């Protein structure tokens, strides 16, 4: 395994791998059957949604139950814009911007409270969102929802619809992933991590937790809006059901299961979101929610880093076998040893 890791870290290997991935992304849609393309496209859609959630939750440590709301808003904006015949590029921009502004406003208020306030406030978003969508029927089509067909493959490409849609998803999702990757690997990402780790330390370093929480949340909602646009590209229909409470929880679970705070984990999360319900339905449809809950809990107990951390875990197990002790706390389990107040205690005092 060590030899494999060394091999993988050689720069030319990296480039070859990236080239292979790019080639695959270009070629696969052409050779795969329609159903596979559609599934991959939907995975892409929700990978973007999970990525957005990761920015605010995985990287900055703020639990948010509202991501699906922004996806829904993005989808509605897209559907409305297409129906009104607006330029598609404008629609895409609005689909990102409008949820972004809403996210900004919400986080300006919620982040002020500190602690778990963002979690407690965002839980209301899907719950308010559904009746709101039903109510504003001139914009949203009410309970019926809105459909918008605009992603048919143009004649000059010679592609089938499902291939064209998958390419669009790959292209836009690819850009979003790249931008986000640069964001989290740069100084903003470091600031997010510090805020996540210990807000008091962040303040003392001149990093305002409030500002970065607002920033993270806004970026998350922008990305969520893009995901909504892509959702319309692939599914071509949206309704209040899109942003239901149940979906909100599934999205959060997908992020955790895929791997919080990880770009690759977001992809895995998207895959989980799309594939898991199909799998659990196949086992027993009435047990879907139970299985979901069980899987999430098992991951939290056994693999808190998510599926993406499996290789890391395997590597650690192997090094343990060679006699290096794994680090663990030897302090008593029932009663914590005295320690300076950590972020957890401060957070409890904040809300």
């Amino acid at each position, binding site marked *: 395994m060590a030899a494999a890791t060394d091999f993988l870290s050689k720069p030319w290997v990296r480039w070859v791998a990236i080239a292979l991935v790019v080639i695959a992304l270009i070629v696969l849609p052409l050779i795969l059957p329609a159903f596979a393309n559609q599934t991959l496209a939907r995975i892409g859609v929700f990978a973007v949604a999970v990525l957005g959630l990761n920015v605010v939750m995985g990287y900055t440590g*703020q639990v948010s*139950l509202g991501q699906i709301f922004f996806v829904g808003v993005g989808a509605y904006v897209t559907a409305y814009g297409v129906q009104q015949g607006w330029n598609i590029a404008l629609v895409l921009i609005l689909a990102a911007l409008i949820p972004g502004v809403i996210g900004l406003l919400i986080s300006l208020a919620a982040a002020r409270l500190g602690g778990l306030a963002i979690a407690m406030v965002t839980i209301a978003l899907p719950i308010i969102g559904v009746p709101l969508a039903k109510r504003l029927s001139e914009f949203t089509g009410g309970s019926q929802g809105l459909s918008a067909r605009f992603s048919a493959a143009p004649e000059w490409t010679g592609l089938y619809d499902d291939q064209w849609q998958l390419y669009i998803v790959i292209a836009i999702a690819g850009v979003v992933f790249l931008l986000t990757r640069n964001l989290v690997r740069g100084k903003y990402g470091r600031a997010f991590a510090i805020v996540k780790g210990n807000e008091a330390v962040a303040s003392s370093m001149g990093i305002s937790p409030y500002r970065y929480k607002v920033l993270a949340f806004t970026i998350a909602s922008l990305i969520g809006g893009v995901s909504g646009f892509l959702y319309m590209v692939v599914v071509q229909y949206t309704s209040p059901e899109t942003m239901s409470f149940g979906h909100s929880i599934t999205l959060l679970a997908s992020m955790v299961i895929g791997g919080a705070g990880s770009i690759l984990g977001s992809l895995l999360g998207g895959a989980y979101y799309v594939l898991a319900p199909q799998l659990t339905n196949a086992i027993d449809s009435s047990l879907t929610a139970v*299985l979901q809950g069980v899987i999430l*809990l098992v991951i*939290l107990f056994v693999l808190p880093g998510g599926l993406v951390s499996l290789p890391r875990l395997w590597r650690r197990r192997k090094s343990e076998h060679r006699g290096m002790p794994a680090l663990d706390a030897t302090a008593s389990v029932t009663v914590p*040893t005295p320690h300076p107040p950590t972020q957890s205690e401060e957070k409890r005092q904040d*809300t």
Partner: protein
Amino acid sequence: MGTFIQLVIDGLSAGSIYAALALAIVLVNQATGLINFAQGGMAVLAAYFAYTFLQWGVPLILAILLSVLVSFVLGAVIERFLMRRFERGDPDTAVVVTIGLLTLITGLCGWIWSFNNLQFPSLFPVQTVNILGAVVSIRSIGTTLVIVGIMLLLQLLFLGTKLGLALRAVAVNPQSASFSGLPVGRLLMVGWGLAAGLGAVAGALIAPSLTLTPGMMDSALVYALAAVILGGLSSPIGVVIAAWMIGVLENLAAVYVPFIGYDLKIAVPFILIFIVLIVRPQGLFGRKEVVRV
């Protein structure tokens, strides 16, 4: 005037339910430092237990009391075997665990009892009384009184008994408490058990009007969390008053503010939060805590 009084009293009744759930959340938070997003789900499960006891022919009051008891045990077990690992750690991780628990519980309820709406009988007669020209339901008055009564009992427990003292000590400084011989683990279980029992009462009281479904208390949870935000995690009284305010205001808004209407009244508490936050960032009653590194 009549409508107004009716709305206020109905609002107090709904607010009492939110208050009970909010108190349970505060109780768990003070004891173990985390926010239990599954508190409402646990309350629904308790209501389903009561429903099953009813099916077995147990009289209503007894069925509810039994469900409170079962709930107490379940809460203690959940603390010991599920949550213990995540207490005093990162609260965000703990919250996700409770969300997983919520999913599991909702799923189990749906699987065992189906997702259909089930009828749940009310402790109170359907009649109404006339107060100052308003037609007020006995159920609303009864619900409010029962919950206020329970809250007073809990206050008595916490302030007047040795167990209550022990629970408070453990919540505030578990290590110091253990140095004085308090069995911290067991007391945490009791704390969770009490919170679960409180939720069970709320569940049984709201089930008649909402009908029993696995997602029955999802909205109530949202209201309860809003009450916690407004009242501040450190102030049980503040949380209760906030919950009542939310209950009353949303009812009034539903009728007197046409845009909000019945289906959007859940937005009311958050509009409230928005407004309050601009004035007082720490909530209505919470204390400004000093943050130490």
